[in-house]
Each structure stands twice: as structure tokens, then as C-alpha cells.
């Protein structure tokens, strides 16, 4: 199939400054058991190509699900027409962008072959966790689900570049909701929006801890139901990795996207408080803050060998010892901004043009043990599992809510609290980072649903982080 596609592409590619073809085939399976009832399986196969043409300084894209020679030719003609229409009327003369000519292959590491587990076996696993949620009449809803995706992607350039990449994604989840006396609380094993998502095979189910997760979330929901509201005030917080992932995502990842800084997203996703002149000197956080863009961590959700413009992936520091070093910008944005970035030009599928996205955006581990992080807190709250997030369009003023909190009093963990929320400002929050956990506190998380772009794109993103402590944070609880 790929050989035929490549041959057709090379035969039909117009004589232009640059022409590329990106092929994506993605097969998915989503299984769920809710309240002990198996829901019908949802299967899907998406297959299509995106053509890129640069001609006379203009840039055009055309995508089609028609993979016939005629369909490919038509897509090339449409992309070429757009290139000509936008020549001399674009944000940059695209002829001046040195588009990569990559060669190579990438495959997700799979330790346990998914084919060894049948669909019926998977339903049985999910049914067992669903059943184990039923521990109390106050548990009013519960579900276990499993989402598996295989993606086969190829990228050809007319001048001989070729990359083939195969990805295997596994996303398990389990949740329970408890209700009594007008109060509802939900506990999930990794966030209600699939925070535990990785590349690999069935070993991911072991890492997630699927077995036993049903009872754990049910007990957690009941515990929250009986807990007091989170206290309010200015205090220290210790954020666990399943909340850190959203804190990193919203208040480091998005503001450092170079296309936002260049203004492309101002009509929808927003701008950034970060400006081009800040790179190399701006103190983003305390000296404890080290942030990397790392698409090379094998098991992480958004690892790859090359981005969707063919740029080879490498681990890069974005923030080192608190100082801002480089943005999240791919080949085209780097040319526009005149600065180095990373390999992060990505599209959600064949039918969208690539733009600057986070891939794996991680906080490097520090030196504190969990006990040391807690021991330094006189009064504060530990928070787990993101539930709510909101941030302004410059990615500065934010507010987050978590599923679970636990008061820290005089360096010791105390009572569990519900509805923990906190708010702050990105530009100052990271400077209040006062403790970074070591490897023992480090977890690899992510999200399948990072939304951005026009037309809209939801992409996979990975975030790995240790537990982190922040000082003097504005914390508050629910309505009561």
C-alpha cells in the first residue's frame, strides 16, 4: 500500500519549490462497562492523506480520503492552487523555509502484545472492575473503559524524503461517583479526561493498575463524600503528578507555543504573555524549575521520531534552572521568529495541517523525597487528580480544581478534603516553586484531548512530572 502510494505521489507531484504527502491510517477500539453493563464496542478506521505544496512563496494544503490516483491528483491541484493564491500574501515567503528531507522509521515499544487479549477478555477485565465498584448504595454511577489505538503514518517529500512511523496507544480509565445528602463526588483512577495514557502494549494496564482500580475509586468517592470542604486562604500546596500535568500544560506549554507568540491563535486559542525578547533571559520560575520537551521517552504518550514537517525529534530544555531558553516552535515558526525551537509541528490526523503543538512536555525530577516535600509545609494542602482547569487567553491567570485534597499540618498529612481549588498567575506562580520531588515521586501522564487550531485539532500530549511544592498559593474549596 505505502509503496503504491509513494509511487503515485512521486509521479503526480507538481514541479514546485516543495511538495510532501502525509498518509495517516488510524484504527481504534473503545470498550466500556458502565454500571456492570457492557456498552457496544466502538471501532474506527480513519485513512487519508494531506498534501503540502510550496510554490512561488505561497503555501497550500489539501486533504482527501480518496486515495485513488485521481483523488491524489485532485488534492495536489487544490493544494497547488492555494499555494499560488497565497503567494506574496502570506506571513512568510515559504520558499525561504528550509523544509526537512527526513529518512527513517519509528515504532512504539510494545512489551506485551495486545493481540494476546481478545475483545471478550478485555470486556471481562472491565466487568470485574465495574463489579468491584459496587461497595455501597451511595455509589450511584461507575464505569471502567479501555481505549486502544494503532496509528500508521508515512511522510514523503517529492525530493526523496521518507519517514514511516507506527504508534500504539493504550488509555484505560476507571471512575466512581458517590452521592448522599445533596452532595456528589467523583473519584477516578487518573482523571476523568484520561490522564493515564501511554504508548505501548498491555504492560500499560499493569502500570495503570487496572486490577483493583474499581474498588479504589469507589472507596475514594465515598471518602470525599464524608470529607469537609478544602480550607480557604493563602498557603503552601503540594501538587501530585496527576495535577502537575495540567499545570504544566496550561501555564508552561501553551504560553511557550511559538505560533501563539507569533499571533496565529489569537482568534481562537489565544495569545501568550511570553514575548520573543524573553527567551534566553526571562526568569520563568525558581531555580528548581527544569522543563524539557522530550519526544524521545519511549512509553510516553506523545513520543515520535519525526514531527509532521519531518523534523527529527530530540530532547530539548525549554526552561533550565528557571530561565526561559527556547520556545515550542517547529520548522516554519522557527523561520518566522528567527530563533531555534523544537520538533513539534504536529497535526491531529490526515485531515488537518500541522501547527506548533506540545508533545511530551516534562518537568525534570529534583532531589526531594515525598516526605521532605511534606515536612516543609506548616499548613497547606496536597492535591491530586485534575478535575477543572481555566486560564486566560494570554495563559497567565489560571484556576485549577482537583478531585482530592489532604490537609498538611505542621509537616504531617492530616484530614482528606473535598473540592480543592487554587488560583494564581503563571508569570509569578512558577517562581513560588519551593520543592521538586525526586524520581520516586515522578509519574508519566498525559492527555488525549489538547485542543487548539483553526480548523480545530485535538492532539495527544504527554506530561511527566514529579510531585512539586509551591508556596503562598490562593487556595479555596467548594460552595459547601
Amino acid at each position: 500500500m505505502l509503496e503504491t502510494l509513494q509511487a503515485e505521489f512521486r509521479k503526480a507531484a507538481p514541479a514546485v519549490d516543495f511538495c510532501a504527502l502525509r498518509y495517516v491510517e488510524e484504527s481504534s477500539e473503545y470498550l466500556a462497562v458502565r454500571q456492570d453493563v457492557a456498552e457496544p464496542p466502538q471501532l474506527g478506521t480513519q485513512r487519508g492523506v494531506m498534501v503540502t505544496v510550496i510554490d512561488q512563496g505561497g503555501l497550500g494544503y489539501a486533504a482527501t480520503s480518496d486515495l485513488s490516483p485521481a483523488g491524489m491528483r485532485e488534492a495536489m491541484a487544490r493544494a497547488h492552487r492555494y499555494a499560488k493564491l497565497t503567494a506574496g500574501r502570506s506571513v512568510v515567503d515559504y520558499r525561504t523555509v528550509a523544509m526537512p528531507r527526513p529518512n527513517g522509521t519509528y515504532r512504539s515499544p510494545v512489551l506485551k502484545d495486545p493481540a494476546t487479549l481478545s475483545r471478550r477478555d478485555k470486556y471481562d477485565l472491565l466487568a470485574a472492575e465495574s463489579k468491584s465498584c459496587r461497595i455501597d448504595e451511595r455509589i450511584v454511577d461507575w464505569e471502567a473503559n479501555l481505549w486502544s489505538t494503532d496509528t500508521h503514518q508515512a511522510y514523503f517529500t517529492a525530493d526523496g524524503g521518507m519517514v514511516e512511523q507506527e504508534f500504539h496507544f493504550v488509555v484505560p480509565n476507571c471512575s466512581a461517583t458517590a452521592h448522599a445528602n445533596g452532595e456528589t463526588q467523583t473519584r477516578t483512577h487518573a482523571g476523568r479526561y484520561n490522564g493515564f495514557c501511554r504508548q505501548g502494549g498491555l504492560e500499560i494496564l499493569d502500570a495503570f493498575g487496572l486490577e483493583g482500580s474499581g474498588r479504589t475509586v469507589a472507596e475514594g468517592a465515598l471518602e470525599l463524600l464524608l470529607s469537609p470542604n478544602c480550607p480557604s486562604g493563602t498557603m503552601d500546596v503540594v501538587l501530585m503528578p496527576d495535577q502537575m500535568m495540567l499545570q504544566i500544560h496550561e501555564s508552561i506549554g501553551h504560553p511557550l507555543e511559538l505560533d501563539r507568540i507569533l499571533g496565529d491563535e489569537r482568534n481562537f486559542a489565544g495569545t501568550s504573555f511570553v514575548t520573543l525578547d524573553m527567551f534566553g533571559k526571562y526568569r520563568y520560575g525558581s531555580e528548581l524549575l527544569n522543563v524539557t520537551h522530550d519526544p524521545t521517552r519511549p512509553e510516553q504518550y506523545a513520543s515520535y521520531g519525526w514531527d509532521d514537517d519531518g523534523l527529527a525529534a530530540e530532547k530539548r530544555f525549554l526552561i533550565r534552572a528557571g530561565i526561559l531558553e527556547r520556545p515550542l516552535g517547529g520548522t516554519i515558526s522557527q523561520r518566522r521568529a528567527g530563533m531555534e525551537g523544537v520538533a513539534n509541528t504536529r497535526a491531529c490526523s490526515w485531515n488537518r495541517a500541522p501547527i506548533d503543538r506540545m508533545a511530551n512536555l516534562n518537568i525534570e525530577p529534583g532531589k526531594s523525597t515525598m516526605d521532605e516535600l511534606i515536612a516543609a509545609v506548616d499548613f497547606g494542602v496536597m492535591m491530586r487528580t485534575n478535575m477543572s482547569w481555566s486560564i486566560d487567553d494570554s495563559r497567565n491567570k489560571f484556576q485549577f480544581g482537583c478531585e482530592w485534597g489532604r490537609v498538611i499540618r505542621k509537616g504531617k498529612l492530616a484530614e482528606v478534603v473535598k473540592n480543592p481549588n487554587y488560583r494564581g498567575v503563571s508569570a509569578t506562580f512558577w517562581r513560588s516553586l519551593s520543592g521538586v520531588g525526586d524520581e520516586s515521586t515522578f509519574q508519566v501522564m498525559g492527555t488525549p484531548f489538547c485542543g487548539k487550531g483553526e480548523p480545530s485539532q485535538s492532539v495527544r500530549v504527554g506530561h511527566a512530572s514529579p510531585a512539586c511544592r509551591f508556596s503562598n498559593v490562593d487556595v479555596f474549596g467548594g460552595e459547601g
Partner: protein
Amino acid sequence: MRPYFEDLANFLESRVKPSEIIVSRLSAEDSDFIRFNKSVVRQATAVRQIGWTLTLVEGTRRIDASLTLSGHMAADREALSGLLETLRAGIADVPEDPFLLLETTAASSSSERRGALPDPSQVIDEVLAAGRGLDLVGFHASGPIYKGFSSSLGVRHWHAVENFGFSWCLYHDRDKAVKTTYAGTEWESHAFAGKMRFAQEQLGRLGEKPQTLKPGAYRAFIAPAAMTEILGMLSWAGFGLKSRNTKQSALIRMADQDARLSHLVTLRENTREGIASGFQGEGFVRPESVALVEEGRLSSPLVSPRSAREYGVPTNGANSGETPESLDLASGVLPEADALAALDTGLYVGNLWYLNFSDRSACRLTGMTRFASFWVEDGRIRAPLNVMRFDDTAYRILGDNLEALTRERDLVPDDNTYGERSTVSMRTPGALVRDFALTL
């Protein structure tokens, strides 16, 4: 596209076995997407896609699979035949589904709305000309959208629309901008030019020194574009039967504790006046209107076929997520022209952004002001606002603190294009509220 859909559906249904039901759903589009930044083009993309979802039912077992197709009949017949056999091979491993419900009564419907859409070259010419000397950033989406449903039980629906949407911002500086939307089925150059002129007039107001407010409670006029964000939160997690029965609805206090919104608030799923198709994924026709909140009291939930079976009530044509697709907030009596005078002193909130729940059970929302939001004194705009966070419950914003809704309403199409172009829309007036709680 319709003959193609019907031929393929007929082909599949001709292969149905006596013990089976075959359901086909088509979702296709041929779209032009053009992004602008700094008054020139950033990206232009054409997307031609055909998506087909095939459902096989045998007894109470159901399996669904979606596939992209080429548009060539022979190749697509072969692809769908192969998919059907795959589903047949797999259905024995699927547990029985006690909540399976499909439309079984033979019925058909058709709606087609043709448009006069502009060629991309015309859009680029007109937008670049209008944006000359300005900082314009925007997004144009245009082309036909097709939705089809067919089942071997004799149910067949078709919905086709040719439309466009162009939303753009004129930026003054940093985060200060005027956002405007021009959407419809016929592009009229003079209408676009008129909206552009109005936006430029507003842009002038952003040149004043911005005002930074302290956290506290303020009078506010929430313009229709901002209201869609608040109503969007209620849509996300408020109206479905499943969320109500599992106590996860953001409006659970209205369902269980007789909490109420203001008597001014009447909300409907108004399919008749929306853009979305009149049928849903299991083939049920949507009623023209479903009352969701009547004069502040919670009314009917949205009931998907699955929830209908699970909870033993009739479906009212809701989608599987039980979210409204044509939400309609009834108008009030405040003339829009008098809104600033009625506000007197407070915030004019042009847009809100990035809303989420800070306490879902209490329907407490948080979010940010965005774009052209202003400080108003004595009924006159005085200064643009620096962005502020609000954190308040819907029971206060649309309840005790709601003073008035405007007489005029805006139809706001959802311009999201995740996977495909949306056909969701909302119709809402603006709202005058007191003690709007700003927190950061």
C-alpha cells in the same frame, strides 16, 4: 452526494440477514479553511472527507465501526462489504446490550439548504483588502456538509447544508481586540464590509488606557457572545437524563432540591430554528422543541435512546451525549440599545473564555473576560478592561442576580471544527446582572 449515500446504503441493506439490522450513518464535507494573521494568510487548507459509520445489530448485540471512504462506488462497496463481514465475525464476542434502542418505525425526512458560497480567492481578496493597515487575525470555513441516516428497518434521513463562517479579530494590542463573526449561506460583500466597518469603530474604543478592576462584585452586562459560554457550560453537563439520574448534572440542585433560576430564564432545545439535523444517531426524529427550563424551573431532560431504555422513559431525540444542539434562551424585554443605560456603572462583558466548574454540584463556574470588554460609567463606555476572572454560580448569575434579558437575540453558530465542521448553534439574548463576582 445523496445518490451516492442512498446507493451505498441500499447496497448494504440488500445484504442484511433476517436476524440482523444494519444501520448506516454518513458524515461528509468538502471544506475550504483559510487562516489569517497580521492581515495576510497563514494557512489555507482544502479538506474532502467522507465518513461512514456502520452499525450491525443481531438480537440485543450491537457493534459500531466507522470508516473513511473514497467517494468511488465500487471501492467503497468493497470496503463496506469487508467491514460488514468484520462486524459479523466480531459480534458474537460482544455482550448483550439491555439498553439497545433504535428507531424501528419506517420514516424518512430530508432537508437541504443550498448556498452561494464564495470562491477562496474572493475571500482572500476581500479579507486582505479590508484588513489593510490593521492587525487582523481570523478563520474562514466554507463548503457543503452532508449527514445521512439509513437503516434496514426503513428509516432514512438526509440533511445537507452549504454554509460558511468567518470569524475574525481586529487587534489593538496584546489581548485587546474586537471579535466579529459573519456566517450564513450566501456571502455578500457589502454585508461583510458593513461588519468590518462596525468592528473598526469598536476598535477605536480599545485605544483608551485599560482599567484594572479589583476582585469584588460588580454590575455587568453580559453580551450574547459571552452568554453562549455560560450556556455552553450548562449544555455540557446540565440537561441530560443520565447526568441527572446519576447526580452528576451541574443542575442537580434544580432536580433534587428545587433550586431555581430566575423566572426570566426559559431554555429550549429548539431544533426547528437551529442549524443541526432533525434526526439523531439512532434514527429518531427530534421534536421541534424540548422545554429544558421553564421560567426558572427545571423541565424536561434530554433523553438519548440509550437512556430511554435504561431509565424506562421515551427518548426525545437527544444525541448520545444528551447535549443540546440548538439551545435557545428566550428573549427578555430590555431593548439592546438601552443595555448600557440600564447597566449604568459596571462591566460590559463582550466575550468570556475558558469556562469550567469550580464546584459542579453547585453549578459554580469560573472563566475569564476576553476581547472587547469595557468599564462603563453613567451608561457610557469609559475604558477597556484588563482581563478578569469570575467565579460564581449559575444560580446567582442567571438566578437571584439576573435583572433583565435583552429583547434582541443573536444566533451564534458553533465554529468548532474538531474532526468535522459543527452544526451546533445557540440563540441567546444579552443579560444584565448585579453582583457578578470577580476573583482575580
